[in-house]
């Protein structure tokens, strides 16, 4: 089954709403705790990233028999150097965002660590699509 969320940019007070809502749904479906935690961490990180870097966007989540897939689409600035962005500790968060404690260089690596598959399609000037796959039960 599918769920869609719109994320508004630059509003940190609302960031994380979609992740919380999905978490609640996964719990209602009886998805194992470990999967919920990995989903929560990956999706929250991606959602926050979207707020910080891309002025929001949309999130589509599909839950089926054994896979949760999360697709986050934004029309933000794009990532110029993906390989660099994937390095531990790298961040392009603005100073203001970092002072808030968000995006302090955990971002994509953290998603990668907690998910089973992470793909990023990004075109500079057009936007980024992040796809996160999580196997249920592992």
């Amino acid at each position, binding site marked *: *089954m599918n769920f869609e969320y719109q994320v508004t940019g630059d509003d940190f007070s609302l960031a*994380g709403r979609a*992740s*919380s809502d999905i*978490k*609640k*749904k996964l*719990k*209602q*479906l*009886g998805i194992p*705790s*470990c999967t*919920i*935690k990995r989903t*929560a*961490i990956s999706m*929250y*990180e991606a959602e*926050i990233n979207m707020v910080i870097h891309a002025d929001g966007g949309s999130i589509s989540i599909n*839950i089926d*028999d054994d896979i949760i897939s999360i697709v986050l689409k934004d029309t933000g600035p794009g990532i110029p150097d993906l390989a660099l962005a994937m390095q531990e500790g790298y961040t392009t968060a603005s100073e203001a965002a970092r002072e808030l404690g968000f995006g302090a260089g955990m971002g994509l690596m*953290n998603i990668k660590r*907690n998910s089973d598959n992470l793909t990023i399609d990004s075109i500079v000037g057009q936007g980024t699509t992040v796809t996160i796959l999580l196997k249920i039960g592992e």
Partner: protein
Amino acid sequence: MEDHYFHSVTLDASLCKGCTVCIKGCPTEAIRVQKGRAWIIPERCIDCGECIRTCPSGAKKAISDPISLLEQFDYCVAIPAPTLYGQFRASVSCNRILTALKSLGFDDVYEVAAAAEILSHETRDFLIQNKGKGTFISSSCPVIVRLVESRFPSLLDQLVPMISPMELSARIVKEREKDRPGKVGVFFISPCAAKVTDVKNPRGITHSSVDGVIGIKDIYKELKLAVSQVEEEEPLNKASALGISWARTDGEGAAVNSENHISVDGIDHVIDVLENLENGHIRDVDFVELMSCPGGCVGGPLAVENPYVARSIVSIREGRHREEESLSYAESFHPPKGVDLLWTEQLESRATHLLDPDYKTAIKMMEEIEIIRKGLPGLDCGSCGAPSCRALAEDIVLGKTSETDCVFKLREKIRDLTREMIQLESRMPPGLDR
């Protein structure tokens, strides 16, 4: 085990007006109003007492034990929560309060604050030993333990696996008095409704050593009188500032002496922190003290004094105790021989919001819920008796109620029906219709 669904927090149906105020504030969506009165879904309630605080008619109550329970024992020991010290003006000494308490029919008094000191030190050692294993959550507030079980089971491993100060006090007393002939009874003097539940149906241990829980508010009148009548104060107060501080927010957090701790009170804030912990957003924090009540246990539903006044009194007492260094620290911070502090039982996830144990069925139900929810007005007005349109949609799919509980849906139905009736009314018998 006693009744699985025993709850201290209950509803007095004769006082309930069915106003729906309580349904909004319940953190686990455990309350529904139907047929003009509220009822609590037992498997969801965590005994936080929020509904007691919000009910304008005083219909939500916490059941505790009557003081007459003492008659069933040969030797009775009161174990007062440190919160008791916040219920009397700071000029009244702790010894005076304890002497008065004892005069209500107890043979001895042992302060829960003293056990809290032991636990502070043990928790500190535990945190040092487990450094780097993530953020640990205090398990001293029973509401939090139940909340984690039902809403945040992925965090169960992060709860500090130690018994509460109340439980430790009871164990210490029972160990001390083990050779005494006759029946020894230990009674917690409580600001907390959830502790009543925790004694009947504990978590982490198989059974509680506490024999009864008496609400502070239930003995307050007699106690106040007794306090004014104390002739000679007995030196009963052994606990120091460290233990007394557990009555208020950040008492425990500061006492465990972890550099990176946060202390949070109020159930909404607590839920927010647990969400953040689950999302991995809270890092670099070793320990979180989470208290369900505003201000900590001073805000407990069975306390009498305003929580902020009580907190200030507790702080004054702490300051005074700190100055009087002669006070002996409880048990030298070590539990007496024969007293164990650790949990022996594994905590389980209690997925109280699970739609169905079968995943495929649950998915189907969730699809139906989404369809129904989209058809509801989305006002979350509560007049259907459920806390939100989504909760109503869930109740409908779970077969507990029907869509016409929604006043808007009902009106739609009536309008449709009226239209149909008008149409029917305008039709003439075929013989006359020309």
